[in-house]
């Protein structure tokens, strides 16, 4: 799945221009300071925010276009997300999170067993996710994303707020799984070593701050 973004997002005193193409199967890393619009960029791909102007195309299909009035809802975009802090459903068990939106049949598939083993979640399946440690949450969140049939994976600061050991463990897991992952990955992090370590292509958001913040994410 390739992604093409030529769009602009404006809210209050913040604006960001995005002009980026990601080839299918590529891991794109986006670095940049906090508040520079990295999460906004992911939200636009995911369909959680409509862009103010311009368009976004996923695998040739226009999913967001301000002029044509196109806006495909997130549930129809085929994206899986790993948000900062996990974005897990706190009232559900790890198992219900992993199978969310998919039905229980998923549980008896070999893929489920493979992912649960790889992310070491077997003993946590019945636990509610609000009882988990930060590292356990991120493992659950990554496992949910890799279980999804979606071919675009969006990761927003997947190791922020983790202690050093958990961070290294999560990075190892991501590195390992990115190698065999057939989809396209967009990884956002304020930590440029993480981007260098994991991404095939690295970009940086350039933001100039004044009374307004003007950010640019442009492929050179």
């Amino acid at each position, binding site marked *: 799945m390739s992604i093409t973004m030529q769009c602009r997002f404006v809210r209050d005193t913040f604006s960001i221009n995005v002009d980026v193409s990601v080839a299918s199967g590529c891991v794109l890393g986006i670095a940049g300071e906090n508040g520079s619009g990295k999460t906004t960029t992911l939200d636009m791909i995911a*369909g959680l925010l409509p862009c103010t102007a311009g368009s976004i195309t996923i695998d040739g299909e226009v999913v967001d276009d301000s002029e044509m009035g196109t806006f495909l809802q997130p549930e129809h975009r085929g994206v899986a*997300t790993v948000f*900062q802090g996990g*974005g897990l*459903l*706190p009232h559900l068990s790890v198992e219900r999170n992993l199978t969310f939106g998919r039905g229980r049949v998923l549980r008896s598939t070999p893929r489920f067993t493979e992912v649960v083993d790889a992310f070491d979640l077997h003993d946590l399946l019945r636990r509610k996710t609000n009882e988990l440690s930060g590292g356990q949450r991120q493992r659950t969140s990554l496992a949910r994303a890799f279980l999804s049939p979606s071919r675009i994976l969006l990761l927003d600061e997947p190791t922020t707020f983790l202690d050093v050991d958990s961070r290294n463990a999560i990075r190892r897991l991501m590195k390992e799984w990115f190698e065999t992952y057939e989809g396209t990955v967009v990884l956002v992090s304020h930590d440029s070593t993480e981007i260098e370590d994991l991404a095939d292509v690295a970009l940086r958001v350039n933001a100039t701050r004044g009374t307004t913040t003007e950010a640019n994410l442009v492929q050179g």
Partner: protein
Amino acid sequence: MTRRLSHPRGLSFLGLPAAGLVIVPIVAVVWRTPWSNFWSSISNDASRTALALSLRTSLIATLLALVFGTPLAWMLANSTFRGRAVVRALLVLPMVLPPVVGGVALLFAFGRRGLVGGVLDDWFGIRLAFTETATVMAEFFVAAPFFIVVMEAAFEQVDRRVLGAARTFGAGPWRSFLTVTIPLVRPSLIAGLVLTWARALGEFGATITFAGNTPGRTQTVPLAVYSALESGNDSALALSMLMVAVSVVVLVALRGRWISALRRGGE
């Protein structure tokens, strides 16, 4: 010498009158309740009718708050239309308005010559004032804002990231509302319902103004207490005692599990 950090000397003593003024009357009700004929006082026909009416109307008012207040609170928490602040202020107004004034307002809106009531009467022959429906409306008017306020705060605190994740993993807007948002606000929902019901059960001013004080039709327990007291009837104390007991039960229930939900909202 006591070994502790010193406090402003005498400050606590100034608080005693406040505590006394609140606690002594409650103690007095418990003290003076005619326990020997307590049961007969609350189970005579007039009391039983008032109790049944109170229970029925307050539960209907609470149910209406649930069914119509939840969407309204959700809308206030999630949309940014112009004049939202004004709408919110008007919706909360009944919480601070003297209930009698609320009753007057209801009368001029839904009474026979009221803004809406006039039309209802002329066109459909529907008269709302001084009926059991009016009792429900008065209770809703006074109590529903509590529910709306609690639920709006709860909806505002639902983590957008969690909802966003649910959407990307395939849940449509309705499905994420029902399977993610509602379970996340459930503690507040329960707390809000209990508070609303308690407020509806105790409603007096708006009810007596808009629905009147007709035994068997609009005379709820608080009105029955008032009437019984006027006529020097023993059941005033017994019914008061019952209301104190119900309030204590509500408080204990809220304290145990749900009072924190009022602050936390969702998660």
